[in-house]
């Protein structure tokens, strides 16, 4: 990337060597725009009062009361549910997506092209469009196997995993194709089975893309709302997205102080992971477009 930018920089330097002061000014403006709501939520989280009154001035008081108040709610239970669902889904998505990508990348079999094309087409239809049918399916399934019915986190995970192959296989497939097949062949000549090649060679060489897919899947599941809302009916099995929505859905009774504290805690891990791994995520985003 930097090599490609180099010739351009040479030409611009020839033309103008002025210090681009206005660009710094603009940058400060953009940063203010980008961070203002985040500063606001941070300020509201640490504010003394739990209501909205007085919260229009930033950082006037400092108190951890709002964070302590979270223990009186179901917040930590919801956070636990969210983590449980998101981590399981991320792990499952990676395992299934990687296995399918390995098969499409390394084996030549009848129906391979059709399979890839079908996946590409399915990928275009977001799973959540079928939420009515998913609701009805789980309603029926729950009468027979309650663990897979409505209000079951396991059922929600299964639903999310249903979308795993369509979303992730292509991202991984492209990456798997860049691992030279000579490595597999050498191992095969040495007597390795296809499973040994998969677990021992291919998965180890593709760890970066596995991490990206796991992370993207985690972030997407963490913030997913409509399916979680439809599937999880009782308050104690809600995820953060569903639960925190109910805190502020009614503007009159909204508890913004607690919400702000909860939002800060919920956003921190995602924010840190995202910024730490932004280089990888950006490549994944531009290839697969997960949100945006």
């Amino acid at each position, binding site marked *: *990337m930097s090599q*490609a*930018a180099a*010739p*351009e920089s040479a030409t*611009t330097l020839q033309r103008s060597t002025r210090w681009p002061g206005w660009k710094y000014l*603009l940058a400060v403006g953009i940063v203010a*725009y*980008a961070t203002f*709501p985040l500063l*606001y939520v941070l300020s509201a989280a640490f504010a003394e009062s739990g209501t*909205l*009154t007085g919260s229009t001035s930033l950082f006037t008081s400092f108190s951890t009361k709002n964070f302590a108040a979270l223990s009186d709610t179901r917040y930590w239970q919801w956070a636990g549910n969210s983590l449980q669902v998101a981590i399981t889904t991320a792990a499952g998505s990676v395992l*299934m997506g990687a*296995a399918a990508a*390995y098969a499409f990348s390394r*084996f030549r079999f009848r129906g391979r092209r059709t399979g890839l*094309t079908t996946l*590409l*087409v*399915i990928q*275009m*239809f*977001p*799973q*959540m469009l*079928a*939420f*009515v*049918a*998913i*609701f009805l*399916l789980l309603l*029926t*399934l729950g009468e*027979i*196997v309650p663990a897979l019915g409505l209000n079951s986190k396991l059922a929600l995970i*299964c639903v999310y995993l*249903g979308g795993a192959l*369509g979303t992730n*296989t292509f991202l991984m497939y492209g990456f798997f194709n860049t691992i030279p097949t000579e490595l597999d062949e050498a*191992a095969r*000549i040495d*007597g*390795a089975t296809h*499973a*040994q090649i998969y677990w021992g060679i291919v998965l180890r060489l593709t760890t970066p893309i596995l991490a990206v897919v796991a992370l993207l899947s985690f972030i997407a599941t963490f*913030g997913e*709302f*409509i399916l979680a809302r439809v599937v999880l009916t009782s308050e104690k099995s809600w995820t953060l*997205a569903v639960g925190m929505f109910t805190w*502020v859905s009614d503007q009159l009774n*909204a508890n913004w102080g607690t*919400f702000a504290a909860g939002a800060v805690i*919920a956003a921190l891990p995602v*924010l840190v992971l*995202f*910024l730490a791994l932004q280089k990888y995520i*950006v490549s994944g985003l531009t290839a697969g477009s997960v949100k*945006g």
Partner: protein
Amino acid sequence: MSSSPLTADETRTDGRAPRPRRESPARTFTSMSGYVVKLVLMALVNALGLFIAWSAWTAGSWLLLGASLVLLAAADWVYFSRRTVPLKYILPGLLFLLVFQVFTMAYTGYVAFTNYGSGHTLTKERAIDALLIQNERRDPEAPSYPLAILRDADGQLGFAIVEDGTVRVGNAETPLAAAPDATVAGTRVTAVPGWDVLALTDLVGDPALLEQVAALRVPVSEDDSAGSIRTQDGSRGAIYRSALVYDAAADTMTDVESGVVYRPNDRGSFVAEDGTALGVGWRVVVGLENFTKAFTDSAYAGPFAKILVWTFAFAILTVLSSFLVGLLIAGVFNDPRIRGQKVWRTLFILPYAFPAFLSALLWKGMLHSNPDYGIINQLFFFGQRIEWLDDPTLAKLAILGVNLWLSYPYWFLVCTGALQSLPGDVIEAATIDGAGPVRIWRAITLPLLLVSTAPLIISSFAFNFNNFTLIYMLTNGRPRFTDTSAPLGHTDILISMVYQISGVAGGRADYGLASALSLLIFVIVGVVSVVAFRQTRKLEEML
């Protein structure tokens, strides 16, 4: 892998043999343990599959029974056959994909052509049962009996009644039958072998149990028309009979008291001559009705047209605005003279790293119309009371504004990447030919950039077309339309309209209409995708 040195030696001595025959890797330690893991996993899968199949069998759900057996057989075949190597890797994801995406999409297609929804949720058979039970009345002429409440080891409840000195016992599934070995003191049943007799005091402190007892109906005999025993106080049982009688041969319901005959119609209800229908109906295929309903029904037609227009407007405008802002920022800051590029970049994309659902809720609070609460009005609009979320036009502007904040970082990242990978030699050549920066930008940079970002623009359009989270969290579709009874509003998009009328979150359910609208979105998204494929030829590159 521990076998590699050994087998490598052998292949060398064998010369060309690709697979050493004598020392099969399956017999070496690592693959042996792998085989054990596979056996254990397959045992678990089989146990689970058989459990589901068995549950389906006992519940009489033949479709699920068939589906689970077929899928289980497929799994066993794939993992124990030698000729299905690729499928061994694809199957796990494929199973989930088939059940939770492909099947649900197909099922959406089916439901769209039915009247599935409130009042029509059951199959006809179960609707008839439900009608008979719901219309049960106490038979005023039949005697009442002394009654005891029983519970077996599994916690299942039953009744014992005393009729002419003999004890008769039964529960919800098994009709009353004489129990000669039960002990009776006067008219009170004190012990029944195999059951615990509950004392009335047990009931008083346990509302859940009380409710179960009140709902329990024990059939008097195998013949449904004989009615069933129910109790209201827990000590006396009376015979209840349905006010309706179902005649299976004629397929009619008759009200025994008034003699009115209800006949089934093609809309899934029993209807009398005068047009009154019984409360419980069943689901039937109604053809294209759901599709025409969206355009013609007075409650939906007006809102539907407005929502359709707004959905397209929102998706197009939001992609355009965030793309332009992102491109502008990327263009300005793709400048090697600026120091600390990484830091700036990290700060610029902060909104994108913040979970979207939290951002939408946060902005909802910030846009509160009362300046004492809403910081936007307080700080930027001089404390004016501006109804950001309650005025139809302002609410739309607010949604576009919030989504701009949410998604410009994405386009900033994408455009920065695209700008940095532009061919430097072309631009250099243009500079040498005397083209100014504006000309270069217009004639080279922009076209190249659009080519490389076009697929992302289209998929972003598709994403925002269904951006349920943003709309639902920020405005929940509000402000409401005042000219319709449907719970829809000015800022609803198609997917949130589907959500509102589906009734999955409570309220009146219309799964049929909701599915029909989902299908419409499927079609729109599909058409957009075809365009995307044509444009990008991604398919050919990937395969």
